């Protein structure tokens, strides 16, 4: 299991390594800053999909041990989100706070992306075992439901950004909808049924 965790960790670093190696080789295309912005944004939403797929997969595949990867994946989604945000404030806005504030308030797609990113902050901070203890499982879980908001905001950000070809943002919307539906079905079932052994495992996790 330990080895698997290391493998996933390394896997999650490959996109960054890929971007860096392309940058080093001067192979980021005609508009390198746009390439970096898109790549970091793409990987934020992709890893967010992976993070949110963990819980449904645990149940569908009956592999509760998958939970071990969830925090790491969530933190990597946040990590790529940070890189994406940093690319924006540095390479696009050159730390011009006035411009950034104007952008966030005036441009709906920036507003959505910004809100989705900000919502990830408390989740990253409270991702440690210490914080789970301090908040208590129930409150911690409630707080971490913010990730649904981030996912939706991310999709809206993407959808509002594209000019006409909406295939990819719609695809992400459908994936998230499917993942949320699986959760909803399980939530409804566990509410209408007395707790089972499986539910106990869930609560411990």
């Amino acid at each position, binding site marked *: 299991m330990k080895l698997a965790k290391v493998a996933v960790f390394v896997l999650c670093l490959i996109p960054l390594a890929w971007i860096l190696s392309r940058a080093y080789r001067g192979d980021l*295309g*005609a*508009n390198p800053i*746009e390439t970096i912005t898109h790549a970091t944004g793409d990987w934020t939403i992709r890893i967010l999909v992976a993070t949110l797929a963990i819980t449904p997969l645990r149940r569908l595949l009956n592999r509760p041990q998958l939970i071990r990867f969830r925090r790491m994946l969530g933190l990597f989604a946040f990590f790529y989100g940070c890189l994406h945000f940093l690319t924006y404030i540095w390479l696009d806005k050159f730390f011009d706070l006035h411009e950034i504030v104007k952008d966030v308030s005036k*441009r709906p797609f920036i507003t959505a992306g910004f809100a989705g990113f900000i919502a990830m902050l408390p989740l990253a901070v409270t991702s440690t075992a210490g914080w789970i203890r301090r908040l208590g499982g129930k409150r911690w879980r409630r707080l971490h439901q913010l990730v649904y908001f981030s996912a939706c905001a991310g999709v809206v950000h993407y959808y509002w950004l594209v*000019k*006409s*070809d*909406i*295939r990819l943002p719609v695809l992400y919307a459908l994936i998230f909808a499917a993942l949320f539906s699986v959760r909803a079905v399980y939530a409804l079932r566990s509410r209408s049924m007395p707790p089972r052994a499986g539910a106990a495992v869930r609560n411990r996790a």
Partner: protein
Amino acid sequence: MRPSEITPKAVYVTRRRLLAAGLPLVAGWSAFADTPLAPASKSPYSTTEKVTPLKDVASYNNFYEFGTDKSDPARNAKNFRTRPWTITVEGAVAKPRVFDIDAILKLAPLEERIYRHRCVEGWSIVVPWTGFPLNVLLKQVEPLSNAKYVAFQSLYDPKQMPQGKYAGIPLPYVEGLRMDEAMHPLAILCVGMYGEVLPNQDGAPVRLVMPWKYGFKSIKSIAKIRLVENQPPTTWNLANAREYGFYSNVNPEVDHPRWSQASERRLGEFSKRKTLKFNGYEKEVASLYSGMDLRKYY
């Protein structure tokens, strides 16, 4: 002519077959074309700014018929057939005519025009285009007095452009200009760039270049031109009227609803630069729009 000068049939048939087979190859090749073009004269309209590398201009394209990612057209337009090619010029004209592309190439002496080119998305390039003023072609067909606008249409061949169905915009691509804009000496029909034949992904075999307007007005791979009395529909305006107007003059003071147009990133530069009104061609073209509210007519 002496009989000996007549090319034997076997020879010319083979030659034609070779040409037919070879032309797509040449076209495909033209990603970084070194197909020579007739020498072009320098123009006083050229800017002295640093020219963007050909590699960037030929690999970063918005040409949705060939895919919506900027790297798609260079890949997907490789085998686009640009011969045979005709442009139909019709409508409110005394002499409607179908021009063969080779006739177009000989219509006027070719000029090199080094223009700034600003995309509505916020990036810009400096390109040495080769072409001649659009008004040369228009004068050939003798516009009638009721010709108030010029409507352009790109070729749309779903067989050669299978990615077009995902473009998210109505195709064939159409564009339009007011007559005085079309007659302006800065408006050119372009057949080449960097001294070579226009690469397919940049709009071969012939495109429009309107340096004071956002890039999408400079319609590519033109198949039809029609002179009309009323303002013609334009593709991006049909797709999203709130975001893209008929005029679409470069204007740092009028933002796109989703992003600012105040600055731009020149490809190859790290910092952004301020966008100039009419893309820096204010002196030449501002008079076309005197008295017009450019916020209303964006």
